[in-house]
């Protein structure tokens, strides 16, 4: 069985206004700091890509990210994926002109799948990432949430993944709302459900609290990338403050340290 050649390790930055924030279950956002400073650190310490998500953009239908993205794209030379509040091909064009390589779309994709088809036609599959916020409803039953996990849709995650794959989307970013910010580990049931359906690259997100949890989840076939927020952000913050004030469940690492750990555990990352 051939697994993905090399799993990408992607710091994920949730943005609110000018700040990097982090919540739990996508709520109770706490300010972590200035995003540019975190991104510089990640770029210099082995990040394979960066994902930015504007956490309030889809509520207000506008995007605060353009300046942050421009700055990041000028000083970090790795791929940037940007999401949050993207509703039109003009929104995508604007972000690409600011230096984004890919855009992540959730709310507008579910509301109007033809928007995704048009976006692919205009910018190519490689540019379009469909972001899915999954919340557990029962055994093997997950629902897609929109508007940064504030709204229910009634759309079943597995059904939506199948549709997304058929649309020839470039990648899927799958976030577990239940595990987001908890450091309690990935939602294995969710990932086992989605990974076999994803014949396109799959990025998993939500719950990473330790390198060991990352290694364990990568035993599932079909995961191409892991997006991590808290574990990296608290690590950087602790280094900066020269102290560790953490919940018991959170074991921090930098991207390069995580990659070295995975390599030592013989995971192809």
């Amino acid at each position, binding site marked *: *069985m*051939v*697994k*993905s*050649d*090399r799993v*990408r390790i992607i710091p994920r930055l949730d943005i609110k206004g000018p700040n990097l924030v982090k919540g739990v279950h996508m709520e109770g956002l706490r300010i972590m700091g200035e995003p540019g400073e975190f991104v510089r650190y990640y*770029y210099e310490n082995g990040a*394979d*890509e960066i994902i930015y998500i504007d956490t309030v953009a889809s509520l207000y239908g506008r995007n605060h990210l353009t300046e942050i993205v421009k700055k990041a*794209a*000028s*000083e970090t*030379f*790795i*791929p940037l994926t940007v999401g949050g509040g993207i509703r039109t091909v003009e929104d995508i064009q604007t972000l*690409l*002109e*600011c*230096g*984004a*390589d890919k855009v992540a779309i959730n709310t507008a994709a579910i509301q109007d799948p033809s928007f995704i088809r048009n976006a692919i036609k205009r*910018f*190519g*599959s*490689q*540019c379009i990432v469909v972001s899915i916020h999954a919340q557990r409803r029962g055994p093997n039953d997950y629902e897609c949430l929109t508007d940064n996990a504030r709204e229910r849709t009634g759309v079943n995650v597995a059904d939506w993944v199948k549709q997304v794959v058929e649309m020839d989307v*470039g*990648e899927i970013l799958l976030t577990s709302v239940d595990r987001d910010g908890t450091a309690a580990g990935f939602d294995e049931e969710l990932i086992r459900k989605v990974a*076999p359906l994803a*014949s*396109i*690259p799959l990025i998993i997100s939500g719950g990473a609290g330790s390198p060991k949890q990352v290694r364990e989840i990568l035993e599932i*076939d*079909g995961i*191409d*990338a892991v997006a991590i927020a808290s574990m990296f952000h608290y690590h950087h913050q602790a280094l900066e403050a020269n102290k560790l004030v953490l919940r018991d469940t959170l074991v921090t690492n930098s991207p390069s340290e995580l990659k070295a750990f995975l390599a030592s555990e013989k995971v192809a990352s």
Partner: protein
Amino acid sequence: MTASKTIPIAVIDYGIGNTFSILRALSHLGYSPEMVQEPNKLQKYTHAILPGVGAFADGIKRLNERGWTDIIRQWCADGHYLMGICLGMQMLFDESEEFGVHQGLGIIPGKVKRFPDASIMDGVLEYKVPHVGWSNLQLGSNQNSWLGGALEGLKETDEFYFVHSYIPQPSNSNQIIATTKYADLDFCSVVSSNNVWGCQFHPERSAEAGLRILHNFCQLKSVKATFK
């Protein structure tokens, strides 16, 4: 690596592709990248980048419609330095089979083909298309081709960012400067024919190793290109 950085570098703008990151990468390295919209202005430059994302047919159509095709061919034949990136590399070849057969620039002999269909083993795909992610380069058949060229000083462990569904197949194996392995498949990831270079990956998005390639390319001079 001591030559002047003041030479302006043309970034060919034919209405496709995300040129922001290429411009920023070249500026970061200290060069003066300039977007060139009019083909007849290409004569001013000794070095040019041909970027590109999206579909082959759309890219080559835009080059044709805007009058770039013959001018790029002649400019290369005159010994100037061109680097095609991703789709820009693929368009250097004779033809591509992406959504039907389409003629390319024909500067480097060969074809562009889709990754072969992956088989499903034990319910798991052997590999996914598109190939998205970081991979390393291996020396091509010409063992000396990294010396004095765009790959000067790089190691086979250095990794580069790829995102593509199609792969170039040069007719002349001596023009394969580097190959890359995806699952069990080796494909040409860097091609060169004298002064013309192509990278299937994105050097402008491949951190320090990628920047090194752009810098090496911008420093190429006719004397350096005689190694083939």
